[in-house]
């Protein structure tokens, strides 16, 4: 059974269809990519999956349970965590406290040790006591990821985690994502850094004009003429 199943989601803003009938799924232990040109509706779809946006039609299931109309925090309790494209740090707390809040919200029993382990694992040891608002982008993105991981999620939604990262940082991010998937976590990745997407994803969905126009393993998607057309326009 798929960890996440998004079925025929439609979202309408006023007269505009932002997402029109997208269907996709993500499995535990895999990194699933969601790519597409600007304005394709990726972030909207993300907001629907974690409950910030109500869909006009369609349903979202986590582990077979229909969560379409649950509040975001209830979904979090069912194992969905996310990061944001425009950073949403608790900017007046320290890095450690950012992660700590998340761990506490997940009702973990061993908050401190979880937090410390995550700080080391994600590579934030040097900045752990700094105020999150003062961090450079690279570290800030890592804090968001660590914070999401602190809730011990089953499904991790990453919205452009590599934007603003240097090449080395984004490589580091790639190996982190792989190792997370190998531990059994399901990752859904929206990203524009195609090198990263092609490298770490097991399966890719391509969204264009609010619809999934193709899906498959990276190499296949890369050759797909419809994908090329979506990106480059008709020749």
């Amino acid at each position, binding site marked *: 059974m798929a960890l996440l199943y998004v079925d025929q989601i439609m979202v309408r803003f006023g007269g505009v269809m932002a997402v029109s009938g997208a269907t996709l799924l993500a499995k535990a232990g895999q990194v699933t990519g969601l790519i597409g040109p600007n*304005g394709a509706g990726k972030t909207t779809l993300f907001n629907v999956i974690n409950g910030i946006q109500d869909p006009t039609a369609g349903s979202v299931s986590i582990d077979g349970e229909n969560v379409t109309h649950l509040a975001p925090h209830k979904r979090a309790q069912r194992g969905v965590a996310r990061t944001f494209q425009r950073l949403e740090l608790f900017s007046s707390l320290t890095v450690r406290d950012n992660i700590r809040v998340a761990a506490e919200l997940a009702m973990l029993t061993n908050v401190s040790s979880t937090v410390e382990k995550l700080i080391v694992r994600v590579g934030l040891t040097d900045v752990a006591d700094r105020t999150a608002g003062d961090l450079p*982008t690279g570290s800030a993105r890592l804090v968001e990821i660590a914070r999401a991981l602190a809730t011990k999620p089953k499904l991790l939604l990453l919205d452009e985690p590599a934007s603003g990262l240097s090449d080395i940082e984004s490589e580091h991010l790639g190996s982190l994502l792989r190792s997370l998937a190998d531990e059994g976590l399901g990752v859904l990745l929206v990203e524009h850094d195609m090198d990263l997407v*092609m490298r770490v994803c097991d399966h890719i969905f391509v969204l264009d004009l609010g619809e999934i126009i193709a899906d498959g393993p990276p190499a296949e998607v890369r050759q797909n003429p419809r994908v090329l057309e979506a*990106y480059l326009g*008709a020749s």
Partner: protein
Amino acid sequence: MNQPILELRHIRAGYGAIEVMHDISFAIEPGQVVALLGPNGAGKSTTIKVVSGLLRPSSGQLVVAGRDVTGASADALSRAGVCTIPEGRGIFPNLTVRENLVMATFSGRSLEQIEHDAYRRFPRLAERRTQLAGTMSGGEQQMLSLARALAVDPAVLLIDELSMGLAPKIVSELYEQVARIASEGVSILVVEQFARTVLGVADWAIVMSHGVVQVSGPADEIGEEALTSAYLGDRSDP
């Protein structure tokens, strides 16, 4: 009179701590159409924001018609003749079509002239002049923003993602109009992800990714492989 009409010199810019443009330099000659290509997040839209005056670069200079105008406000540049069609739809959704054109009169031209030009070019807008712009279809909305660009008689036109969320057929129609504007000698900087479409119109192409200019050259010399690798990564088959 051989100075570039628009020149970016070592521009760095970004939002707060996030730097999106790392030392970008290029120039546009009078009458030239330059296409700015590259994947999302490459810094193209930020480039447009800097050139239009909406975003102040953190360092570097913006030189327009030989004058350093770094830090000039967007409204002053606009009145001087730099017309921008921003990302998304460059229209006011809660104003009528006619009121959208009223807003164009800040450029200094009279409403009669503007309406005349706009409706001649896009008769469909004339039928809808009292309709709220936000209730029109995406293609019509882009027509309206192009109509404004045409009617204000700009010297420089900046276009950001005209095609976003539109069907390919409408996109190619819109680009026919862009080509017509270009033929009148207006210098154009156009950001587009539909590279194939825009390369038919452009004289020069610049491919950006990660906030850096990767390739720059005459439009007809930019190869498909360079584009594919910029958009979908350079990994060859696994």
